[in-house]
């Protein structure tokens, strides 16, 4: 095998000794990028044109509806500012295959790392024999836990996971030893030569047994060191409970006219990003290490690595490499510590790059859930109470299970007004694969439960399911099950009305057919026989940003200076661009706030303070907020300079079109002439408004920053004889507060909806006795273009007065409601209960 050379997007500011990565973003042209379709201006209703940012900040402003079916911007006024859709700086490179992902990195003298993983879900390690592995020519290092200089533990919220297993393995795929060799195949062969003597134990795989099994019987305690692995003190209970979060509101004895019960299950979904885990660790002359890595949060990686390596942060420097998707799977460490250990041990650069199969074992997945729901309502359809038990299988290690439990529990009734609530959310340890962050993060599982229940309730009441939802829809000003009062737009009823009113696709033709339009596609399973159509609607709710009192901030440095006779803004943050488009939005914000055209995005690294995680739909909000705040500070200083030089009060001046402008007198000076040699630079650490912990007994508290909503309507055709499904149409209405980049917003809605479709009808990591049965894209199926139908998307922009530009997080809500909408449609077509996702053919026939 040849070592791949990297196609290199050359950058003038790249350090000569740095490996080639795809992390540089030159956005000079992004504001002027030509769209292929400039014929369709954005459609706006109920409010006319977009408003400037200052208009929406701190006021609830209806800026109208963006018809996503016509999101292309009018190019005549195109400058790449907020509210427009400049091209992604990396878009063309990605489409043409030239973008350098983390797996493309290469250094001349680098070694390749490989990992020995446990084949057993639960076993004691009696001994590890490295002799034969070390002997293999080309092998530079074979390391075990004994070679970890610092603490051999990591974890996002609780450091309970060994970097390399010590005397026990708790899941299939747990890392036991690592190898560095001069060729990837040599490294893999050396891994095979390591002899581990396991005493195989009976795995604990049933989350209910894990949670509630008798302490006295033979249910093992998977983390006997107590709360080293446990959740926050006092929130456990059973011996394998990571977190139990009760939510109690109103009258626990409330009774209702109509009661529906349901038990629901959500299978283990994988993020299935297309660029498997990879990175390159380069030992540095100061004894430290430089890690080029595809991740979601450089600083949380750095913090964990410092502990493992026993080094201060100054010696553990991270730079973001090209990220091929994330969806939560890159929040936890994968190969980061391993590559750094090998690099520091050998004194050579070490690259690690997982195969697709290894990737399935190398990252956390979405928590499988078992949920029991009871909904009580009056005859008029008003919900009286909701009771629920939600058990989330966190697998072998804690990862972000406590926060996932919080979401599932606090959002467990959905976007409805319910006065009496009793929900118990549990996250448990088992010997199943570790589960953690994935798009939708606890809210996805709960939504399948509560939306299934709403349909069941509508059926019991003989009501239209949309009408039932609208009758119970939450709105601004209501109190959540946590007691938190919703203080910005919550257009739940409006979103439902919008998706319900969208035009339906034509009925299937009776006299002819196109296989591609039928369930089964070109596999030719039906020519119309057995095909029934169904329509379903669902809505979901998601919290945006980190919750429960977490100090959730981002740091941005903005510099304005003259380069080559032009005024140029540089934006530097550590916020990970994982494909969502933050780099584009950052430049848009800088253009908007500083009135410049040229914006450079600095490579994303730990040379600046934390940007926080690229998760929880939070980056545009928090890092966007930080960039905006830093720009405002820079602008203030520049206008002060201008005021001095022009003899006008700063308040009378603004920046626009690379010029200093006065409203009274027009252009006063070119920005370059005001700046001269001055470099104006500001760094801001920006926080959203604080949140607060939840009461551990009642789950009460103002824990969330912002709520976001999306509704879907799904139209499906089901071959009821074969159980095959084709989603015919999947429409969405979502409130985004402010469409910072309408094309990117709609892209997020398309992608999120597709991921929800995958969970509805095909995506599941099948685990039996703790072992993964389908770690490949042959048998872990994700939707193709023939599975994903056309979408009509309505984007509402109801500004949140507390958020920068009024924006609301976009990325997760469409993943949440898509799944239950599709399942509702399948139920409508088949009459089956369908209490588990993904729905499989044998559930239908």
């Amino acid at each position, binding site marked *: 095998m040849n070592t791949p050379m990297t196609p290199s997007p050359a950058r003038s500011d790249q350090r000569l000794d740095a490996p080639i990565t795809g992390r540089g973003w030159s956005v000079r042209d992004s504001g002027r990028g030509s769209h292929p379709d400039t014929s369709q201006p954005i459609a706006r209703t109920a409010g006319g044109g977009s408003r400037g940012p200052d208009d929406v900040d701190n006021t609830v402003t209806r800026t109208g509806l963006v018809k996503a079916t016509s999101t292309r911007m009018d190019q005549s006024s195109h400058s790449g500012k907020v509210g427009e859709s400049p091209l992604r700086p990396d878009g063309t490179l990605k489409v043409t295959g030239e973008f350098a992902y983390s797996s493309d990195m290469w250094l001349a003298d680098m070694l390749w790392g490989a990992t020995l993983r446990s084949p057993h879900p639960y076993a004691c390690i009696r001994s590890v024999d490295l002799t034969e592995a070390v002997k293999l020519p080309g092998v530079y290092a074979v390391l075990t836990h004994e070679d970890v200089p610092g603490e051999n533990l990591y974890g996002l919220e609780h450091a309970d996971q060994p970097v390399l297993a010590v005397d026990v393995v708790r899941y299939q795929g747990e890392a036991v030893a690592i190898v560095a060799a001069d060729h990837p195949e040599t490294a893999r062969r050396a891994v095979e030569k390591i002899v581990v003597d396991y005493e195989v134990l009976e795995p604990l795989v049933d989350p209910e047994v894990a949670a509630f099994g008798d302490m006295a019987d033979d249910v093992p305690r998977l983390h006997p060191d107590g709360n080293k692995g446990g959740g926050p003190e006092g929130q456990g209970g059973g011996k394998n409970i990571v977190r139990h979060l009760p939510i109690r509101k109103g009258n626990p004895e409330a009774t209702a006219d109509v009661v529906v019960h349901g038990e629901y299950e959500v299978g283990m979904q994988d993020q299935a990003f297309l660029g498997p885990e990879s990175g390159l660790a380069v030992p540095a002359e100061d004894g430290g290490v430089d890690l080029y890595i595809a991740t979601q949060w450089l600083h949380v990686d750095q913090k964990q690595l410092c502990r493992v390596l026993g080094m201060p942060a100054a010696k553990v420097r991270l730079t973001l490499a090209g990220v091929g998707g994330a969806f939560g799977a890159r929040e936890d460490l994968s190969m980061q510590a391993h590559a750094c250990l090998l690099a520091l041990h050998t004194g050579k650069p070490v690259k690690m790059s997982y195969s697709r199969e290894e990737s399935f074992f190398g990252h956390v997945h979405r928590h499988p859930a078992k949920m029991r729901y009871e909904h009580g309502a009056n005859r008029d359809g008003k919900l009286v109470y909701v009771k629920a038990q939600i058990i989330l299988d966190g697998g072998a290690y804690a990862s972000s299970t406590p926060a996932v439990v919080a979401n599932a529990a606090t959002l467990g009734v959905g976007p409805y007004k319910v006065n009496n609530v009793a929900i118990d959310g549990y996250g448990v340890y088992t010997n199943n694969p570790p589960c953690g962050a994935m798009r939708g993060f606890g809210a996805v599982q709960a939504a399948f439960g509560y939306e299934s229940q709403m349909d069941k309730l509508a059926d019991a009441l003989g009501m239209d399911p949309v009408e039932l939802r609208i009758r119970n829809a939450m709105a601004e000003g209501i109190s959540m099950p946590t007691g938190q009062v919703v203080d910005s737009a919550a257009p739940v009823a409006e979103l439902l009305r919008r998706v319900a009113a969208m035009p339906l696709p034509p009925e299937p033709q009776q006299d002819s057919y196109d296989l591609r339009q039928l369930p*089964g596609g070109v596999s030719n399973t039906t020519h119309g026989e057995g095909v029934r159509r169904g329509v379903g609607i669902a809505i979901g709710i998601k919290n945006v940003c980190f919750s429960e009192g977490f100090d959730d901030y981002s740091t941005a440095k903005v510099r304005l200076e003259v380069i080559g006779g032009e005024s140029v803004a540089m934006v530097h943050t550590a916020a990970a661009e994982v494909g969502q488009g933050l780099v584009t939005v950052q430049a848009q914000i800088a253009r908007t706030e500083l009135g410049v055209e040229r914006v450079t995005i600095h490579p994303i690294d730990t040379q600046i303070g934390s940007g926080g995680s690229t998760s929880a739909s939070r980056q545009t909000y928090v890092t966007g907020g930080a960039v905006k705040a830093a720009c405002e500070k820079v602008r203030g200083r520049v206008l002060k300079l201008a005021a001095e030089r022009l003899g006008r009060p700063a308040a009378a001046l603004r920046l626009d079109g690379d010029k200093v402008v006065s409203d009274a007198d027009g252009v006063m000076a070119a920005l370059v002439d005001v700046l001269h040699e001055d470099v104006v630079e500001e760094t801001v650490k920006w926080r959203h408004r604080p949140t607060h912990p939840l009461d551990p007994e009642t789950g009460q508290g103002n824990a969330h920053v912002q709520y976001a909503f999306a509704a879907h309507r799904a139209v499906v055709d089901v071959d009821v004889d074969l159980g095959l499904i084709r989603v015919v149409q999947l429409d969405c209405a979502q409130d985004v507060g402010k469409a910072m980049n309408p094309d990117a917003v709609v892209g997020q809605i398309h992608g999120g909806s597709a991921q929800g479709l995958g969970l509805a009808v095909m995506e599941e990591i099948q685990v039996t006795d703790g072992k993964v049965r389908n770690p*490949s894209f042959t*048998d872990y199926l994700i939707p193709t273009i023939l599975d994903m139908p056309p979408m009509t998307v309505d984007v509402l922009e109801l500004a949140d007065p507390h958020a920068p530009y009024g924006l609301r997080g976009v990325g997760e809500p469409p993943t949440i409601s898509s799944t239950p909408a599709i399942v509702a449609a399948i139920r409508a077509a088949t009459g089956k209960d369908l209490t588990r996702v993904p729905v499989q053919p*044998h559930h239908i026939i």
Partner: protein
Amino acid sequence: MEFLRPATWAEALAAKAEHPDALPIAGGTDVMVELNFDVKRPPFLLDLTRVTELADWAPDGGMLRVGAGVTYSRLISELGDQLPGLAMASRTVGSPQIRNRGTVGGNLGSASPAGDAHPPLLADSEAGAVVEAHSVRGTRFIPISEFYVGVKRSALEPDELIAAYWLRPAAGPQQFSKIGTRNAMVISVTAFAIALHPASRRVGTGFGSAAPTPRRATEAEQFLSDELTASGRWESRAELDPAAVAQFGELVAAAASPIDDVRGTASYRRHALSVMAKRTLVWSWSDFRNARPAPNSRRTA
């Protein structure tokens, strides 16, 4: 691992004789997956892509001799009219890129019960297709029904390579149907092929992913052939008896010995086979009654 690249068929056979443990590779759509997943680590790879005659096909004595290296894409575009069942099966293989690389020869070489080409090869004629195997020792013609001997095992000797396979051009309607849990690019949960042979008054069948090997549903074939003959329907072209259709479906399902696995359950596979058998029979018979040629016109490119 050594990579052998014979320039001619004779060199390829010599190489295979010298290295019986060499793994032949053509399109690589199966072999490369197994290598990447470390399922196989053969000492030699025998690259057949330089042997140009493998990519030829020609009519020969009333039959078609198709080289083992003819890709699925070419089967669809060049042989879709003459081998509609095989073309329909080819259309369900992977993605366009995979169909541009993959070959039926490779499908035969792997002999996976899930191979999409097998059911139409089994259904092709009364005896099914014939595999032409070569070695330095000579040529063997192996009837397709004797070719599959176990899970991913064929009747090939260690020194043999597949040169070609022989089929009869369709003289009646053919259909192929495959279950996957995705609407494209999916490995079969189970698949079924049917071919009507009005001249010999026979019905051919084949199914995949529902037994250790691809199989014919011989009792179903016999039942239906007898039923159609006894009722004079080959001549009258009258509508099928619904009871006979149902019986055919049941017999096809009964011929299977499926298992529960990650792609589906045994009971679902049996059920799906009966549904596909009934539907494809009805479509084929409808084509026969309407005296239409095989239904390529429905093919979606």
